[in-house]
Structure formats: structure tokens, C-alpha cells
């Protein structure tokens, strides 16, 4: 059974611009955002069978809805994020409080070392990948590797539209990898190719990568992804996965989609 941390979008909106997707002029339709979020929750709970833990939204923190950036959780140990932008640094205390309130052992990184949680750290059971350069600092990965006893392969993010690793790479439960290669440099692409055989590398076309096809939630054979990515769905189906497209375009205005809206707890 999969548990996910989520936060209702009561105060979601575009109040600042910290990635190329955000435009304050591109206002969020709040009602529509709430409808889309609820639909996502229904799919996760009913179709996928995930258990949802809901955080209390906080006025003035529009991006608290993107719980993937709360931190990283393995077993009962949680490392809260240290955000690069001051706009999101205010979220840190709330995420940390939530972890402590739930009885997690909270381990904190040195101040000044940016790390944006599961947005930049995801992987297979034995090998993790760490996105760096846009948001997280590569220097956090050796520390996290030591704390969690996992190999972490750092991957440089070279396209600022794909500013978190979970916007361009999604490891799937069967050992397959959904990803958009141009978001990485030659070294990153080669490192991935070294680890994952070609038949398991599912390359998302650019048009769908820009709809955040890779920002998908995989639970068992279920893959919840933003709507409008038919080629990605076909790729997933061909490897035996069950795609669940969900319209999430209100959240794309902020540069986030299905995966950004959840944090895997165990």
C-alpha cells in the first residue's frame, strides 16, 4: 500500500515567478484548480489505491500544494527541503513540523545547501538519481547517500524549463524509466544509458515533455500523468503499465503536475 502526502490547493495561485512557467499575469482559475486537484485525489485513492495524508494549507504559501518538495522520506526518516528561492523557504518550517508531528525522525541539512526534496531526488530501490544545478546543490547528495545508504547518481539539469528532476525523469516500478533526454547533458544521458538498457528507457516526445508527461506518479502498474500525452500513454501501455491521464493544466501554470502534487511517504 502506498501512502502519499498531499496538500489541498486552497491558497494556490501565481504570486511570484521563480521558474519559466510562472507568469503572474496568467492567473489561476481557483475553482478549476480545486476541481482538478480533487479529481487527481479521486484517481489516486480509488483507481490506484493510494492512501492520502492531507496537510493543512497555509494562507500566503501558494506552492505548499507541491508536496513533492517537502523533503525526502525513507522509512521513518525524513530530510526536509532547503529551498533555493526565499519565496519557497517559508514552506520549510511547515513541512518540517508535519514530519515531526507524524513522528518521523527528522534529519536536517546544513543551512545554505539547497535541496528541493523528492522533486530532485528519485529513483529505483537501489539507485537514486539527483537533479542539480537548477535548484538542488550537488553537494547534498553525498550526505544523503550516507544517511540513506543509497547510491545517488547526480544528473545536471541543463534546460531551465525542466527545473526539477521530476519534471523530466520518472523511474517506474518495473525498472523502466520515463524521461526526456534533452533535459540532460551528454554526461547525464550516458550515465543513464549505462544503468538502464535501451528497451527500458521510454523516451517522451518533446511536445509531451513540455506538458510534463514525466511528472507522473507510479504506484505498482498504475501511472497517473497529466492529460494530453497520448504517445507517453502508448509507451506505458506497451510496457504493461496502466496510464491514468488527469487534466492538471491549472497547476502547469505554476510549473507543476501530478508528481509535484504528491510526496511518497513509504
Amino acid at each position, binding site marked *: 500500500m502506498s501512502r502519499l502526502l498531499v496538500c489541498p490547493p486552497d491558497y494556490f495561485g501565481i504570486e511570484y515567478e521563480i521558474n519559466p512557467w510562472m507568469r503572474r499575469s496568467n492567473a489561476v482559475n481557483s475553482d478549476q484548480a480545486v476541481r482538478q486537484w480533487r479529481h487527481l485525489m479521486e484517481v489516486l485513492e480509488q483507481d490506484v489505491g493510494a492512501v492520502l495524508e492531507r496537510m493543512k494549507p497555509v494562507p500566503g504559501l501558494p506552492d505548499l500544494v507541491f508536496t513533492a518538495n517537502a523533503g525526502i522520506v525513507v522509512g521513518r526518516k525524513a530530510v526536509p527541503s532547503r529551498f533555493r528561492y526565499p519565496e519557497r523557504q517559508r514552506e520549510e518550517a511547515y513541512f518540517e513540523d508535519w514530519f515531526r508531528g507524524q513522528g518521523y525522525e527528522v534529519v536536517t541539512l546544513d543551512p545554505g545547501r539547497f535541496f528541493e526534496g523528492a522533486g530532485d531526488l528519485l529513483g529505483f530501490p*537501489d*539507485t537514486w538519481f539527483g537533479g*542539480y*544545478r537548477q535548484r538542488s546543490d*550537488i*553537494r547534498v*547528495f*553525498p550526505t544523503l*547517500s*550516507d544517511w540513506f*545508504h*543509497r*547510491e*545517488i*547518481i*547526480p*544528473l*545536471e539539469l541543463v534546460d531551465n524549463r525542466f527545473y526539477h528532476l521530476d519534471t523530466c525523469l520518472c523511474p517506474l516500478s518495473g525498472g523502466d524509466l520515463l524521461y526526456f533526454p534533452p533535459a540532460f*547533458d551528454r*554526461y*547525464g544521458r*550516458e*550515465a543513464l544509458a*549505462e*544503468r538502464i538498457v535501451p528497451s527500458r528507457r521510454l523516451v517522451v516526445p518533446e511536445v509531451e515533455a513540455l506538458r510534463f508527461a514525466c511528472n507522473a506518479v507510479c504506484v505498482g502498474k498504475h501511472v497517473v500523468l497529466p492529460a494530453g500525452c497520448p504517445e507517453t500513454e502508448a509507451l506505458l501501455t506497451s510496457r504493461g503499465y496502466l496510464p491514468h491521464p488527469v487534466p492538471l493544466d491549472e497547476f502547469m501554470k505554476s510549473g507543476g503536475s501530478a508528481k509535484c502534487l504528491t510526496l511518497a511517504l513509504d
Partner: protein
Amino acid sequence: MMQDQETVLLQGHIIDSLILAKVLDTILMMGGTFDLQDMQIGKTREEPSRARIIVRASSAKLLSEIIHAIQPHGASVESERDCRLSAAPADGIFPDEFYATTHLPTQVRVHDQWVEVEGIEMDLGIRVDSVRLNARTVPMGEVKGGDQIVAGREGVRVIPLQRPRDRDVFSFMESQVSSERPHGHVISDIAKRLAQLRTGFREGKAGSKVLLAGGPAIVHAGGREALTWLIDETFIHVLFCGNALPAHDMEVDLYGTSLGYGHAAGRVVPHGHEHHLRTINRIRAIGSIEAAVRSGVIKTGIMAACVRRGVHVVMAGTIRDDGPLPGVITDSVEAQATMRRAIPGIGLALLVASTLHAVATGNLLPATIPSVCVDVNPAVPTKLADRGSFQAVGLVMDAASFLRELARELGWKP
């Protein structure tokens, strides 16, 4: 060429992620170079790897650009401390734990800056003027009480030599010392160097002078004409020798013998053993070798050529010397200091047939100066060539054969 450098550390899963490759490629692509030091590779997939990388660049600006470019990939500059300074307790005495130099380029950290040590030479101390940010080697005998001398190894870095760009005998690390190897190609490469350096010398280029340190065997064995020709053709600019080389050279001019052996006759001549004493006495009466040449008393040979061509001659005496000749420095500390002053500007050193002068000169030379040691006794080239330098070549052969072959390569027609 001196380079700026900085040590950086890189750790994590840097091998499989190709982060190490990316950092090293970045350094090279930007025009820098690197040395990988202390590479520790994780034994399991979980265990991180660590690399200590020395980054070098031709300027401080380029170095800073390179460091700036590799920092986002996790390279962090190793924190470094200033060198420790200790006052010399008295004249001629280093403080305890003084740092003893090698013959490799060296820098010391003073007020957070790496300062080049001037006058690099092995087995000296380093005196630092921390106000002027200046560091210079100092021999034990020349240190003054209160001088600030580098102590310990902290804040001192020794820079390994870059492999030379020229593809000749000096660019291969084999310090060949063997009487059983052909010498032809080695001598041919040395000749090419001499020709290049002479061109540089004529154009006033720094580091184009050629030093020859030689013993009297050059004269006894029949290398005098070849060496004279090399000096006359301005291939040699500095000569280090003792009392014997000039004495026997001028003996040949005055008596046709060296150590009493008739060069033309090919045998020992009666009372020939007196000839070098009479030669020395004659020159002492005239007052100097230069005066003897200028007045026409000495017309041919090595010393005459040196005077004609303005070669800087340093004659260092020993306890077995007869006379000695005027100009021979009998105080060995003063002789060493005079030789040391003649080293700057040298681009190649030929150490021929003299254990004493070859070893003394070898000790004074920084590793950056290519050197050729020629001796019939393999122990001498072995001692000198085995100094951890890319550019020390040893030849086990007779001095006259070496000089004659070298001169012939450069156009001498005996």
C-alpha cells in the same frame, strides 16, 4: 612557464555519474590542466568516491574562471593555510623544522596568497618577506638571525614538472645511463637544442644560455678542439670548472702537452710533468687569464675562446690544486655563491667529465633546466640523472668523443 593552481575536492558518486569526467573535461576545454591526486574509488555501489584534483591554468584569471565553472558540479576548493614562519635564531642557522627545498618549482602561502619561491634549488631554506609578499631560497650559510624562514610543510606546495612539449630526448622520462646504448640520437637531439638556444640567445630570449661544467679530462682525452669550436661558435655561454681544466688547456697552448703528455707526439715528454706548473706560474706572473689571452701569450684553446667570446667563467678551487691560477675562487662557500649567481638564464646544462663540478652544478640547478651528464663512470650520470626530473639525460661515454660528435653535428670540421 609558471602556472597558477588550486586544489579542489570532488566526492560522491562521481564515477558512474560521469561527474568526474565532466569536471576534468571542463578543466581541459577551458584551457587548464589537472593532476588527479588521492583518487579513492568506492568499494561498493553505495560507497562514495573521492578525488583530489590540482587544477592549473596559465593565469590567475583563467584559474578562477575554471574553478567557477566546476564548482556547481561539486568541486570545492580545499581550504588552505598560510605557511608557518619561524625566525632564524642566529646568523647561519635555520630555525628547527625549517623546510628544506627540492629542485622543483615551489610556492608558499602567505596572507592567503600563493607566492612563487624565487631562486629554486635543492637543499636550501625559504626566506619570506611577508610585507612585500616575497619568498626566496636561502642557503644555510647566508641566513641572518631573525630572518623569517618557512617551517614545516603546511602552506608549501611543490609543483611537479609538466612534460616538455618538444619531442626530443629530453621529453622522455628515461634517464638513460648506459654504455651499451647508442648515443647518436641523444647527441643529435642535444645538438638541436644547442642550435635552438643559440638562436634564442642571439635574439635576447630569456633562458637561452648554455652552461658547461667540465673537468680536465676534456683536454687530456682530446676534446679541447671541439669545445673550443663550440665556444667560438657561441654555443656555450657559461663555463664552470676548477683549476685543472684551464691549466691543462693553456699548457697545451704553451707546451703542446697536457699533464706532460705530448698531444702531437702521442707520448709522455721529458720533464712534461712540470709543464702545467710552469703554465700556472706564467699566468700568475701575468696576473689573469684574460690578460694572458689579450696580450697574445695564450692564443688557442678553451680559455682563449672564452675570453674572445665573453663567456662567463667561474673557477672553483679544491684542496689539491696547484697554484692556483688567478681567478680561481679558493673559498668554497664563495665559489658556490658565485656559481649560484650564474644560474639564472640558463636553458641547458652540459656536465662533462667532472664528478665534483657536475654534482655541485646539479645541486644548484632547478629541475626545470634540462641537463646532460657525460662521464665514463656510470655513477656520476646515475647520481645526477636520478633526480626525479623529466629532463636529465645521462650518457656513459668519454668526454672527448661526446664533444667531438656534438661539435660535428653542429658543423665542426676537424
